[in-house]
């Protein structure tokens, strides 16, 4: 079993106060906090190794290049990608998804084809496909889901069909916490000749991910949601696909040979990394991977499931006061994201009151406007956990929600 107090000691920010109360940080689905080891990796890089990569013959450049590529290796191993060339650095999951939309989908999806999504996609796995559909004659189809936000696969054979060229699915919903059966859907997509993309922004930080086992063709995720810095993300893709794809951005670093008339592209992964990359943040993401590997992703997963089950039980108190929980009731179908609505108090007001108690939650539509609208609300409140959250913090959160609800119901004390 992991030692949460020991983990918390590694996160300097967790010991600060907010509005006179110890910080209870539960907005991890938006971004996670960073351990000292990640912050130190950034400092260490800029103090001792800073240089541009892949071009200098001097020592610093060689050392920086080595560290940058070691970080890529770490990430590749973390998701069991095998060949590190199949891991492309991007800014974030959104950029990874846009890369697929521009470099793969534009050339491989034809008029009359369809793309299959779920109703719980983040805007980042929705808008790029809408844009593509606008340019081409492409249909976007949605797999239906039930009232708990679990996909209903009873009609899946008529949704994913021979004209489906891409199935792009969020692994864990950032607005509901639902964990989708990506392996099953990937096999189905492949059986119809479609490609399969996993939006792993919420799953890669919290569970053991094996892209080979899923057999997905693409996976997008962000570094900052897994203890890494902002500004660094990844796209995993099968090598034969990457080799066949045109670059997303062009310019320096990504070329093999350039004349005044034309250019040829560098090998993977550099073909997709135009310009000076985000070296420092890539290296620090490598440190985040080390940190998570050191805890063990099985342990992270197990601990968060226990914490989520505990929270679901605690939330019964909120439900008894009229609160409503969204997402699956079954703890095995969900991750550590609790999205809820409270009667008499709007999420925005609840968020402000909780902030006054030092508790950070997200309120709003969570970049999933159509989904939140389909829940019949204009916004929800969302608490999302990470491995450094504790049961005591869940108690503080639930007490805080109840206090805020009473305050709004019964008037000013």
């Amino acid at each position, binding site marked *: 079993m992991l030692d949460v107090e020991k983990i918390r000691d590694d996160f300097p920010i967790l010991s600060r106060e907010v509005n006179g109360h110890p910080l209870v940080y539960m907005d991890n689905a938006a971004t996670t906090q960073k351990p000292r080891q990640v912050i130190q990796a950034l400092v260490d890089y800029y103090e001792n190794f800073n240089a541009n990569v892949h071009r200098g013959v001097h020592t610093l450049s060689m050392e920086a290049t080595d560290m940058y590529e070691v970080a890529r290796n770490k990430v590749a191993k973390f998701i069991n990608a095998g060949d590190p060339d199949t891991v492309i650095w991007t800014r974030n999951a959104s950029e990874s998804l846009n890369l697929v939309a521009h470099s793969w989908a534009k050339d491989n999806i034809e008029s009359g084809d369809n793309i299959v999504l779920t109703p719980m996609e983040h805007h980042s796995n929705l808008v790029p496909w809408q844009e593509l559909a606008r340019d081409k004659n492409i249909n976007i189809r949605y797999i239906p889901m039930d009232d708990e936000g679990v996909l209903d696969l009873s009609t899946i054979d008529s949704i994913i069909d021979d004209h489906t060229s891409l199935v792009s699915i969020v692994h864990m919903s950032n607005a509901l916490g639902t964990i989708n059966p990506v392996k099953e859907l990937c096999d189905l997509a492949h059986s119809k000749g479609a490609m399969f993309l996993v939006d792993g922004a919420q799953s890669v930080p919290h569970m053991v991910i094996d892209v080979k086992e899923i057999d997905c063709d693409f996976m997008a995720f962000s570094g900052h949601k897994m203890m890494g810095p902002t500004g660094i993300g990844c796209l995993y893709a099968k090598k034969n696909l990457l080799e066949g794809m045109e670059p997303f951005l062009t310019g320096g670093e990504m070329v093999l040979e350039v004349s005044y008339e034309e250019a040829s592209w560098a090998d993977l992964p550099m073909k997709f990394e135009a310009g000076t990359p985000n070296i420092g943040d890539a290296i620090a993401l490598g440190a985040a991977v080390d940190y998570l590997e050191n805890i063990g992703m099985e342990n992270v997963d197990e601990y968060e499931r226990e914490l989520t089950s505990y929270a679901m039980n605690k939330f019964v108190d909120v439900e008894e006061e009229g609160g409503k929980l969204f997402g699956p009731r079954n703890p095995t179908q969900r991750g550590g994201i609790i999205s809820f609505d409270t009667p008499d108090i709007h999420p*925005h*007001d609840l968020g402000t009151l909780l902030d*006054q*108690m030092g508790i950070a939650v997200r309120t709003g539509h969570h970049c999933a*406007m159509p989904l939140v609208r389909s829940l019949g609300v*204009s916004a929800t409140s969302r608490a999302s956990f990470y491995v450094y959250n504790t049961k005591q913090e869940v108690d503080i959160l639930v007490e805080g929600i109840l206090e805020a609800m009473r305050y*709004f119901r019964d008037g000013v004390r």
Partner: protein
Amino acid sequence: MFDAQDLYQEIVMDHNRRPRNFGSIADSTSSSEGFNPLCGDQVTVFLKVSDEIVEDVSFEGVGCAISKSSASMMTEGVKGKSVEEALIVFQAFRRMLTTTSDQVEDSEILGDLEILKGVSQYPTRIKCATLSWHTLQAALQGSGSDVSTE
């Protein structure tokens, strides 16, 4: 325990629970819609203007306590005023929320609306309070165009 009384004063909570002038106006002369994409707040302001006087004003929509009570207090604050006076109140209200100073310059113009001064200490909530006012401005100027906080 928490301290948010400066934001959620009794009168604000009262307007939230029992918003005044809530609903549409059948014979309105203009209306506008406002939307805050950040939080999903949405408001429609209805006006009945005759001889440059705001004879009636109402609102509809969904939103947090700050946006709802601000809209409710706004309708009470501008009803019966001339269009020009209503726009002056709008400017004074916006000034009150966007200046960090504790002093309120336009107390005489603002009247009861000064209660919402506390919102200025919560930068993320200022748009909640001003959404209905921007929507009112659009309706007053007869543009009828939709308003977005972003």
